[in-house]
């Protein structure tokens, strides 16, 4: 580990020198590629340091991103981090593709109904607690205070919907890293994925209602159509993607990792333009391939393990660099309260509603549900764009919560998997 620390320090010294050199140049060029290279290298070695300290590599990626990012040491300009948005979609898409290859029909039949029920319970309880708390904070939250009661209720519902969301990206990345296998892991992965589907539907509804309370009227057909397109359109596009992948693997079959990275990038970017969920598109593609041809599903898994390390290291380090630490100061107390309440709600719901046949679910499952990352970021940004009058302030509050969840979530997820006894290896072949 000492070697990795030394290498990380050398890299940071080089970045510091580049920052100093920039000061003598009056007109700086584009910082995007610099950010990509720096975060990739620092992320990789920080991951090794974190592993040496018994933490998930992912935590190392995020922490080093925070350290070298624009809100701490400032080695990487904010514009550089913003330019890496493209990588986020790619990483989510790749991770979902791997997760999809794990979704066999047998698994869905075995745990599908139980997972859906528990997910509804956890999401419901967490939503109720956060909704109540947010509305109770109306007098002290600057963006809620001037609103009418119906408006404040709608905005509280919208905010709470986003706050409920989990992070399939972090969960799947930690599962990849630890090579965890077994019923507990399957249950956890299925729960975070289904939880995201719940959140997507709920967010669409809450956004429609919020728009109505602010005088734009409730357009029910558009609301249902939008949510339906996001869900079923994503699955449809995912199926087309699966066919394209199978044709490539059977026809061309060269440079599969590169092909998958390219296709995932196209799926993520194209999906976002078509208002589809990149997560669901890739998940559907992976699941269809795994159920049509198990051998090809395994090959995709291996190929992403080969190509995934740089993408995941860059994604999580960029996520860390993008965490607005200054937001913690302004909305810190409210965010902290919501973080604690969300954690308690998830813990209580898991203790109360998790299936009793496996005691590990009652004890450890909640730890795997604390993380928040890409999906929550995306929804927060959407709130900001859709409701410019109060959205940016809501975004700041949510980002402050994500900051806290990003720092503790991966560690808790790893502990959950360790507690379940399903971790097979300390060092997986790739992944995060």
């Amino acid at each position, binding site marked *: 580990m000492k070697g990795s620390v030394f290498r990380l320090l050398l890299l940071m010294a080089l970045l510091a020198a580049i920052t100093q050199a920039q000061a003598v140049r009056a007109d700086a*060029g584009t910082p995007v590629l610099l950010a990509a290279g720096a975060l990739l290298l620092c992320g990789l070695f920080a991951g090794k340091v974190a592993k040496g300290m018994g933490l998930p590599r992912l935590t190392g990626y995020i922490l080093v991103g925070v350290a070298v990012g624009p809100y701490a040491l400032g080695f990487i300009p904010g514009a550089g981090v913003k330019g890496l948005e493209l990588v986020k979609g790619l990483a989510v898409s790749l991770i979902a593709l791997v997760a999809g290859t794990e979704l066999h029909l047998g698994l869905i039949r075995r745990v599908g109904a139980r997972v859906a029920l528990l997910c509804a319970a956890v999401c419901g309880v967490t939503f109720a607690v956060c909704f109540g708390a947010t509305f109770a904070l109306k007098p002290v939250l600057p963006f809620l205070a001037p609103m009418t009661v119906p408006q404040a209720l709608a905005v509280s519902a919208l905010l709470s919907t986003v706050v409920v969301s989990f992070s399939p990206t972090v969960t799947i990345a930690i599962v990849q890293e630890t090579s965890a296998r077994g019923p507990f892991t399957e249950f956890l992965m299925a729960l975070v994925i289904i939880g995201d589907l719940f959140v997507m539907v709920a967010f669409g509804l809450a956004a429609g209602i919020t728009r109505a309370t602010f005088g734009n009227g409730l357009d029910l057909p558009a609301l249902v159509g939008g949510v339906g397109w996001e869900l079923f359109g994503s699955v449809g596009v995912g199926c087309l993607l699966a066919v394209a992948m199978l044709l490539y693997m059977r026809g061309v079959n060269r440079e599969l990792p590169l092909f998958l990275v390219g296709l995932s990038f196209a799926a993520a970017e194209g999906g976002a333009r078509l208002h589809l969920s990149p997560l669901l598109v890739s998940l559907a593609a992976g699941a269809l391939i795994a159920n049509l041809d198990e051998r090809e599903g395994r090959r995709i898994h291996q190929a992403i393990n080969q190509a995934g390390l740089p993408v995941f290291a860059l994604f999580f380090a960029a996520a860390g660099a993008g965490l607005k630490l200054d937001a913690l100061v302004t909305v810190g107390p409210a965010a902290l309260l919501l973080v604690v309440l969300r954690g308690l709600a998830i813990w209580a719901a898991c203790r109360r509603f998790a299936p009793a046949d496996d005691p590990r679910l009652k004890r450890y499952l909640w730890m795997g549900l604390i993380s928040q990352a890409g999906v929550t970021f995306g929804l927060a940004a959407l709130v900001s764009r859709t409701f410019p009058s109060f959205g940016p302030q809501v975004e700041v509050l949510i980002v402050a919560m994500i900051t806290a969840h990003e720092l503790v979530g991966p560690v808790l997820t790893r502990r959950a998997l360790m507690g379940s006894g399903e971790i097979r290896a300390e060092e997986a072949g790739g992944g995060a």
Partner: protein
Amino acid sequence: MQALLVFLIVAALSLLASSRSLLDPARFPALAQLAASGLLFLIFGVLLGPSGLGVLTARNLDSLRPLIALGLGTGGVLLGLNLEPRLLRLLPRPVYAAALAHAGTAFLFVALPLLVPLMLSSGLRPLMAVSAAALLGAAASLSSGHFAVLGYRNGRLERARGLGVALLTMMDDAVGLGVLALGLVLGATGNAAQGLGLLGLALLLGVACGALLAFLTRSLKDPAEQTTVTLGMVALVGGAAAYLRLSALLAGVACGATLALMGGRTVERVARALARVERPTYLVLVFMVGCSIHARDLSAWALLPAFVGLRFLGKVLGGRVAQRLTQGVLDLPPRFGYALISQGGLALCLVAEYVLLVPGSMSQRVLDVVAVGAVVNEMLAHGAFRQVLAAEPPPPPTQAEPPAGDAGVAA
């Protein structure tokens, strides 16, 4: 969106360029040749860029500059890695003299005459015109040995002669890079001392990154980690250069050369990791250069015949001199100068770098002339190399059958 667009365009073009039926060398030799060299992407770039159909706008291209910096950085590191000090020390002096002769003659044939119209046509500072003329000369001095390599691989050119051509064409890269450095010193800031400082900073950055890469990769055993560190460092060297407005290409060369000197066994692993991304990165770069061409600049079109014609003369004459200088040392084919007409990708890298660091109409004109000239030279090279093959004695009957894919290149 722009990145997705470029990705989809390049992916679609790659599929097109790899289609054997569409680009059958027997049916469309010129098109197949352009596809093989990647210059077909340049033509598509012109067609889809702001000068053509406008699918990509000038603003789009501006936001895609990191891709150009990545391409230049990667190209630079690969060039630097090829600088093997042990091998360079073994080469006899006449080989250096011959390389300098054919590259230098083409340089002088192009740079000196074109300096006059460049000075007259622009009301800019003379230093700027000298810098632009030097870049045109540098691009002209470069040659690609790929015809010779394909020639000896498919048995139409004796192996030793093919290798001789390849060696001499590789060595003129140094002339091109040297002139780029000079052009940037003269043109980047308008103050030679300041330009020299920036060049030094670029080289220092490259050396620091190369040394660090050698150190970082030494302890890594996992291939995925090796690839990650290699790609990260290439992005860092190109990105830092682009951020500091330095030459990504020269910083990359310094990085690669430092790694070649210090890397030991890791050099091969780094080269293998880079080889995987070399072709896609190159094609994206060529496409972006194509998009950047101002096809409606009449002055550039007026300079183009002079550039191509003078370069041709310079290469033929320089080839003769080189042949004389290497008698008894290298076995070069008859009509050696005709084997040097193809220009290769480094010329595009030079002008892409120049236009990034020395913005203005003059550097844009240099890019237009060199990029279109590269396509014309590639087409000319196809015919010119036939002259070389025609003068070759027939190959001995024991030589291997030509591979199907290369059949059309020397046909």
